[in-house]
């Protein structure tokens, strides 16, 4: 952490000095605002949030409060209207190779899996590997096999998504998210389409990944069981963070003060 700070301390987009809290975090959202072009409401209304490496965070809140929007911002799938996302102290919104960054550092898991129907489980896991670290076709297949073993799907490696149960599909999707050994996993309602038995399997897997791989997890969920598993629960409402069980609470600043 100290190392990171000294290396990045003078770089553009990083406010230098002891008072900059984002240097301590793996990922830090600094007063993020977002309004959709056709949306009347502000989907995000100045959210600040820091996540440590290896931390397991759950984000909850009523429907439409901006959870998915926030997750997209954290995973740099979308750029905020105002505010900044820092990764290990480095400002991301000014970077132009966000795809490259996403391929190597972030894994995504979605409620409806989004596996590619024409590819087998093993091939689906390899899709992100075309980006990320250089691997031969054989190494890609090998890595896919390892990941499928990790999520307990070795037996079904050669099946296409249609032939798999929903629980199995989500585990393949998790293996895909891990393809390039990211440090951060973002999951949007990962158990939303699963029965409780399959949901438990997925949650056990998350816990295992956090413990064994020191993976940071940010999971958006409606479910209390999911939230209970996390180290920290963040509650949102109307595009703001209203409660954070974590030790460091970063208050949402007064919008008037920011401008």
């Amino acid at each position, binding site marked *: 952490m100290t190392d990171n700070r000294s290396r990045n301390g003078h770089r553009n987009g990083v406010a230098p000095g002891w008072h900059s809290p984002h240097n301590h975090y793996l990922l830090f959202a600094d007063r993020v605002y977002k309004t959709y072009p056709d949306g009347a409401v502000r989907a995000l209304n100045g959210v600040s949030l820091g996540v440590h490496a290896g931390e397991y965070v759950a984000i909850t809140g009523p429907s439409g409060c901006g959870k998915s929007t926030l997750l997209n911002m954290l995973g740099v*799938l*979308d750029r905020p209207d105002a505010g900044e996302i820092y990764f290990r102290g480095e400002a991301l919104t000014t970077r132009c190779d966000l*795809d490259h*960054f996403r391929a190597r550092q972030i894994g995504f898991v979605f409620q409806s899996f989004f596996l590619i129907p024409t590819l087998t489980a093993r*091939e689906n896991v390899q*899709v*992100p590997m*075309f*980006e990320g670290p250089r691997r031969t076709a054989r190494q890609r297949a090998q890595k896919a096999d390892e990941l499928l073993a990790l999520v307990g799907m070795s037996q079904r490696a050669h099946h296409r998504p249609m032939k798999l149960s929903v629980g199995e599909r989500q585990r393949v999707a998790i293996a895909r998210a891990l393809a390039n050994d990211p440090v951060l996993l973002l999951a949007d309602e990962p158990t939303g389409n699963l029965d409780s038995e399959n949901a438990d399997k997925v949650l056990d897997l998350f816990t295992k990944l956090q413990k064994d791989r020191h993976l940071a997890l940010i999971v958006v969920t409606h479910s209390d069981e999911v939230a209970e598993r996390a180290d920290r629960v963040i509650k949102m409402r109307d595009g703001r963070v209203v409660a954070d069980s974590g030790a460091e609470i970063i208050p949402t600043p007064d919008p008037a003060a920011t401008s």
Partner: protein
Amino acid sequence: MYFVSFILKNLARRPIRTVLTVLGLAVAVGSMIALLAVSYNVERSVEAAFDSRRVDLVVMQKGKPMGWDSEFSEYFVRETAKMPEVERVSEGIVGNANIERDGVLVDLGILLVQGWKPDNFGYEDLEILEGRRLQAGDRRKVMIGRTLANNLKELAKIGPIGHRVGDTLTFVGDPKNPYEIVGIFKSPVIFEDGGAIVPFEDGQALHSKRGKVTGFSVRVRKSAPDSHAEVETVKRKIEALRDPDDPYVVVVADTPDKYVQSVSQLELIRAVSWLVSAIALAVSVISLLNTMTMSVLERTQEIGILRAVGWPRGRVVRMILGEAACLAAAAALVGTVIAFIGMQTLTQMPKVNGFIEPDLSPWVVARGFALTVLVGVVGGAYPAYRAARLLPTEAIRHD
């Protein structure tokens, strides 16, 4: 898994659509390749014949690009032969003639009947398959090309008509003078195979051109094998000649390659084949655009996911262009086969028979492939652009 495997799997997703698209493109590409081949083959065979007959200049009447409507007095031939730089000249009379059977015209399409003197350059690379060649003193004799021989043989099955050595043929307009078939030949010039050759004087009579020639070829005495200076001199001298009896007739002397370029029949074939090719290419591009745009729209969500897992726009573009290129490449392959079969079938038809060689030169196929790949890139460009523009957040929103 390889990136290409992924591309192929995407195409295999809708096999019927893929096959139909490839077939549609292949028909267009095939007709393009066939036409390019036809015009290429005709030009090459004419050029090759002039080449093997060591012709330096071809003399025709100026302003008669159709070739066989060229007509001028034998005076030009005589004067040219006298020039010190000229080694030899070889004149000919060319025209379309028809054969009749019991006073009824036999439809053989275009039947090229040439009148040759016994020392015509053409004899040098004519292969006699049966019988003999025409000799000095022959009158009312005819040599027929092998394709014409075959066509006549087919007709002989319906009713009696001369088709073997020793048989006779009657030309329309001269029923009292049947021509005896003395030989069957094979010429390096494909359309000569579909025609016949008669003695020069008979040719003049048959085409009503007494004292005239259609054109003549000139061999120039050269200081070095590829020296152009003498050829230029002779060309200028020939073009300056004026017939005292008909001073308005002007001739042009062209080198064989220039002559082939200027022959309007060949020009027409070339123009038509490029026009049809352009239409075929336009149809192909539109068809590919349709298929690929549909395919991209269907996969909005998938493409969004690819972006989410870290694929940059460039890789999405490469994926779509790759799919389009694969379709085009498959179409080029199938199209080449279609072109080949099409040309074989076409050559079997008596009307075209003798004008088309069922031969696909690698150069023509390569050109067809290059144009088809171009179709792939152009037809894939817009869908690829659409795919690259898809926002990952939009694609995955409808969760």
